[in-house]
């Protein structure tokens, strides 16, 4: 309303206020949630949430990762069933046990991951699962006959001769044929596709731009989303839930989507958007409901609030944690990322021109709403994702350390000596020219040839194997432990060997050292397991993580990257992991910690890099930064970018 020019404002004001007050009176509640509680095992996803959604409004549900937004909405949509509490639709208490139930109450949800059949057209996808109305073949035939007769009356000249009574009869039967229903199971609903026309009407009404005859596999992400929305509308939903609808869209597409949503609001539909992008919340929604750690904090009108207040509500007051954080000793650059860009499967930039430095002996935290490029960034460094452009420079701290034959062969050492990489213990340059092979081997084995400077290696376009063979000790604790990092069906011992089994020339694996390592980790980290032969899949989440982190640390890495290492862990296990990371830091390891809990990030890390939409939205000193600052940077979106 602030945008309205003064003159206009004056004349319109009385009417506006009238409308608003009237609206307040008339606005009926579409859904009302009372004391909704949902638990998963010991984790409380939603705790006594009360929420009202009105007709003809757009409500944003805002919150950090894991605050229970999606769980709450899934309960309205019939995916989950609440442990406790009631749902009222139009003032009546209802039981929603399945998405079908939800649709019977005119509630429809568009999930983040689309549920479409690739080889079908958009229209087929929308009509899928719909019950065919039964037709009597006689009635249908008659209808078609009458239709044709009306055509005959208006037809003139030559075409009139074509239409005879008998023709009309057969034509009628022919048209009706696809509608026959045989018993209960067999239906010919081929012509149901004709209903695509009625779908087109829905699309036109709200201004969707889509070709409904296109196959899903030919569609862009935004088109697929449109299909999902039309599907929900076609099924007659008045209450639409959209789970992070903008996460996959470009800014132009977001604009289009918002226009459509506004049209739907004018049509009296209630729209709920799950999101964590503050600028979009401010742009589109009438009211905002903020959730934090499963609890409903407040619902406010958008015009009465600002981004700062919302951030505060979203992240909450800072909680002091007792994490022993020491000042980094002699931090030197270990890993330098220059202008790194990584594309995801859809060809969008998952990591967009990111540059930063990780120092040895410090923990660099990476904050951000999940899915903003953290995973791709780490995988890019580890050689698991193709790096489109940019560089990953690794400083191997080799200064004054002897060169070995472990990672370099004779030829390479000779070449490096020529380029002046080495010096003798007394400080003179190494010159291997004219020396015999035997002499060089002896010098190397006696540790007489030392590195003059740190070794600098570009890791871009190197596979994990190549990185390992270069002697770069890069450890990576991936996000998805059992699909990447560990093998669920293998025993703890076998999982220990994943990194090291190649050592040695024997064709057989040596299980002795991995077994010792496994027993050591089980003892040190207090892994609860029947034995070291137990398949990892049978362990609880915390113990799986201990096994993985234990293994990754055991190789005494130079760089340790951990993605959400405490996700799903209880407090004690989490602290154990924090301590392990801190120990590594004290051993002068460069630690990269991707986390979601801001309190932990601020208390554990030395510096904090905030990612938003694949870009670095800020690098902060974790000792002085506040939660609000970080929260704001996390939700700050560059409109040109994405």
């Amino acid at each position, binding site marked *: 309303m602030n945008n309205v020019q003064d003159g206009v404002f004056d004349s319109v004001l009385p009417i506006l206020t009238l409308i608003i007050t009237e609206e307040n009176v008339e606005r009926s509640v579409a859904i009302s949630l*009372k*004391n909704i509680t949902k638990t998963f095992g010991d984790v409380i996803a939603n705790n006594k949430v009360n929420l009202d959604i009105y007709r003809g409004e757009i409500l944003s549900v805002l919150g950090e990762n894991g605050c229970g937004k999606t769980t709450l909405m899934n309960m309205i949509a019939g995916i989950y069933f609440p442990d406790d509490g009631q749902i009222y639709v139009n003032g009546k208490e209802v*039981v929603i046990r399945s998405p079908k139930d939800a649709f019977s109450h005119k509630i429809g949800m568009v999930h983040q991951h689309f549920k479409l059949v690739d080889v079908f057209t958009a229209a087929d996808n929308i009509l899928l699962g719909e019950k065919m109305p039964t037709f009597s073949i006689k009635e249908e035939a008659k209808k078609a006959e009458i239709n044709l007769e009306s055509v005959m009356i208006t037809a003139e000249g030559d075409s009139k001769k074509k239409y005879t009574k008998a023709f009309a009869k057969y034509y009628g039967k022919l048209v009706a044929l696809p509608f026959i229903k045989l018993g209960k199971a067999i239906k010919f609903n081929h012509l149901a596709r004709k209903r695509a026309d009625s779908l087109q009407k829905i699309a036109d009404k709200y201004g969707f731009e889509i070709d409904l005859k296109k196959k899903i596999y030919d569609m862009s992400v935004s088109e697929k989303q449109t299909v999902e929305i039309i599907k929900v509308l076609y099924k007659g939903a008045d209450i639409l839930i959209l789970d992070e609808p903008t996460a996959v869209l470009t800014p132009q597409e977001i604009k289009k989507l918002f226009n459509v949503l506004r049209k739907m609001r004018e049509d009296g539909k209630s729209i709920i958007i799950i999101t964590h992008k503050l600028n979009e919340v401010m742009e589109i929604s009438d009211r905002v409901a903020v959730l934090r750690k499963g609890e409903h904090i407040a619902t406010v009108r958008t015009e009465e609030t600002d981004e700062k207040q919302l951030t505060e509500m979203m992240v909450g007051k800072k909680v002091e944690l007792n994490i022993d954080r020491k000042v980094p000793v002699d931090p030197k650059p270990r890993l330098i990322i220059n202008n790194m860009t990584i594309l995801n499967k859809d060809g969008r930039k998952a990591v967009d021109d990111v540059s930063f430095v990780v120092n040895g002996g410090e923990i660099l935290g990476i904050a951000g709403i999940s899915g903003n490029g953290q995973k791709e960034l780490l995988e890019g460094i580890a050689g698991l994702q193709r790096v489109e452009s940019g560089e990953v420079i690794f400083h191997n701290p080799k200064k004054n350390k002897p060169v070995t034959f472990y990672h370099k062969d004779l030829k390479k050492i000779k070449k490096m000596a020529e380029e002046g990489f080495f010096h003798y213990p007394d400080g003179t340059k190494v010159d291997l020219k004219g020396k015999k092979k035997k002499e060089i081997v002896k010098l190397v084995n006696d540790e007489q040839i030392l590195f003059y400077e740190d070794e600098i290696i570009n890791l871009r376009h190197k596979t994990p194997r190549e990185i390992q063979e270069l002697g770069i000790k890069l450890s*990576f604790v991936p996000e998805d432990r059992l699909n990447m990092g560990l093998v669920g069906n293998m025993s703890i011992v076998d999982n220990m060997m994943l990194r090291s089994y190649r050592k040695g020339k*024997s064709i057989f694996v040596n299980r002795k050292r991995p077994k010792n390592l496994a027993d050591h980790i089980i003892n040190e980290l207090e892994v609860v397991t029947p034995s070291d032969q137990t398949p990892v899949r049978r362990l609880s989440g915390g113990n799986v993580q201990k096994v993985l982190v234990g293994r990754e640390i055991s190789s005494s890495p130079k760089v340790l990257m951990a993605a959400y290492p405490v996700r799903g862990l209880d407090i004690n296990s989490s602290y154990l992991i924090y301590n392990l990371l801190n120990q590594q830091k004290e051993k002068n390891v460069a630690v990269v910690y991707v986390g979601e809990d801001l309190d932990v990030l601020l208390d554990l890390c030395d510096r904090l890099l905030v990612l938003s939409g694949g870009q670095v939205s800020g690098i902060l000193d974790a000792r002085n930064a506040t939660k609000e600052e970080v929260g704001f940077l996390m939700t700050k979106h560059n409109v040109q970018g994405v």
Partner: protein
Amino acid sequence: MKAKANKAHEPFVRLVKRKEMKVWQSILLRAGAFLLSLLICGIVSSLITRKGMGYFFTTLVDGVFGTKRRIWNLFHETALLLIVAVAVTPAFKMRFWNIGAEGQVLIGGLCCATCMFYLGGKMNIYALIPIMLVSSMVGGAIWAVIPAIFKAKWNTNETLFTLMMNYIAACLTGFMITTWAPRGSGVVYFEKGNLPKVGNEFLLKIIVVAALTVIMWAYLKFSKHGYELTVVGESERTAKYIGINVKKVIIRTLILCGIICGIAGFLLVSGTNQSIHKTDTVAGRGFTAILVSWLAHFNPLYMTVTSLLVIFIDQGTGQIATLQGLGNSYSDIMTGIFFFIIIASEFFINYKVVFKFSVLKKAKKFAETVPPAPEIETEVKEKEEVEE
């Protein structure tokens, strides 16, 4: 309200995944399944032969253990099935669904037969046998590696590919047979170049297969290659994460599979059959072997047991079929019943069946021990009543 909703939500029968079965329990369950399958075979058989269950069991045992030769034959047939099972195992452990063992064995046999046809009698038998063996191994390996390369490079569907290769192998063999014996009945017999007897006609093959089985067991369990292919099978992403070259592992493993299939073909053509035929040479072993391998959970040592059981049923019922003039289909039916029940028992090792009434009973018990629901619910109900 909660109880009401839960009751409506509960289906009549539900399958629940078991945590883990104790070893003795699973052995007992499998033994029970074996006995049950025998029992059902007996019932079906007595219905067909109208001779009663006693006849079925006595003939079954007699057909397998009746004479010394029959016992030898039992182990011999077991060995021939086992070697194909051993051959398919590494691929299956890698989750490469190679159903083309039939063709790979046949091509191995064809290569061997080619050597025997053109070189048999022209050179020393002890010089010829290595040539036959090597050519069989190469033939089998080529047949197996073609789908592997396509899978590794272009991610084609290995199941269809290997299946189709079977037909090509059969047609190729048929073509060669008509070339060699244009007026024959589709079988070519070889008199020269057959494997020499060691002890009796069976022993040599049994020893070879036993050795290969143990080697394969050690390869899968202790070697680096075996470890790599297990990781690739379990999780390709983890394999990439630790830097395994997945394509290389796929191709290498399939070459190994093909080599062993080739050896199987060599043993069949130059040892057992001393002849070659389009379909009867391998006689479906390539497919039965998959079941054998799977039932043994891809452990070559367990496969000796599963293949022995399969051959036991096959031979025993074969004897009944011969005596009663029932034809081959009879023993196929019996083997089918056997597999059906054994595979079904595998299901109950992983899952248990829970009925609705037992769940509700438990829920009732649980409700008695738990204090009543919080007060909020009753409040709301009162409100509703007022509204009404």
